[in-house]
């Protein structure tokens, strides 16, 4: 298991362990309130209400997704 944070399959040395999901979202230029955005840590979806209180530890695999055109 890597000691860094992985986002959407990419190891991200620029992300320091311990940042919150809200930080992560904002760092990706997404609206803080996260309309249209969802986050999963190690395969578990994190409710938006817990974004500010949830810290991302080293070795976490993050999936950061949003709504795109489709269907």
């Amino acid at each position, binding site marked *: 298991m890597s000691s860094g944070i992985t986002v*959407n*399959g990419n190891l991200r040395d620029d992300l320091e362990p311990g940042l919150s999901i809200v930080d992560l979202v904002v760092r*990706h*230029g*997404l609206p803080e309130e*996260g*309309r*249209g*955005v*969802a*986050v*999963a840590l190690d*395969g578990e*979806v*994190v*409710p*938006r209400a817990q974004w500010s209180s949830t810290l991302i530890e080293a070795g976490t695999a993050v*999936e*950061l*997704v*949003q*709504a*795109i*055109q*489709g*269907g």
Partner: protein
Amino acid sequence: MAAPSDATPTHEVPAIPPLEIAGEALASRLILGTGGFHRLDELAAAIEVSGTAMVTVAMRRVEPSQQGSLIGVLDRAGVRVLPNTAGCFTAREAIRTAELAREALETDWVKLEVIGDDRTLLPDPAELLDAAEQLVARGFQVLPYATDDPVLCRRLEEAGCVAVMPLGSPIGSGRGIANPINIALIAERAQVPVILDAGIGTASEAAQALELGCDAVLLATAVSRASDPIRMAAAMRQAVEAGWLAGGAGRIPVRTWAQASTTPEGMADLG
């Protein structure tokens, strides 16, 4: 649900009732997919012209490259957003995708796609039914993209889906409704709304879907990849209304021979 054939002539044209799904009323029977539009302003214009009240979106990883806010456009348009599970080949993938979408869009409605073949993008009936049962158990309002199989559609309804969405022909093929009798069978039996999904290429095919008893049509490529998407969006809006009206007007029977619309009696004799 087949439109009732109103046998008593009126002298006024009935207003088209809203499409009711899971207790929600949608003002339009045309559902628009957002895929394939080249620009967001084109999408916004197509939404407006089509009169749609609900559009579909997909869930994908955030890309730094992405600019412009799709959700902003859709929220400003005032349409309901229906996330899909496009690209999922197993029940497990589809359920995970649905959960991400529920969190991202704060809706428990989902267009369920479980694909069985990447060339035809046809649904996998067994995986689809399995996924539908699990999603219903998790509190989702499930609108499954299905084959034009009357038995599968009934099973999906029995599993608690709030609508069934049989295909006309493969996604993006523009082949229209390959098996109209199956679609009519599905519409006749269903107790939930039947939404024809996929295959529509032009307006007459959308009208035909409603005439066959479907409650609505879902299409994307037919509009987004037409040479003039806005013009096609307007065509589809009228076609869906025309089809709904015709479907309930009690059409004439199909005959082998002709039936004169003018009496043969009383011809003048001019020697």
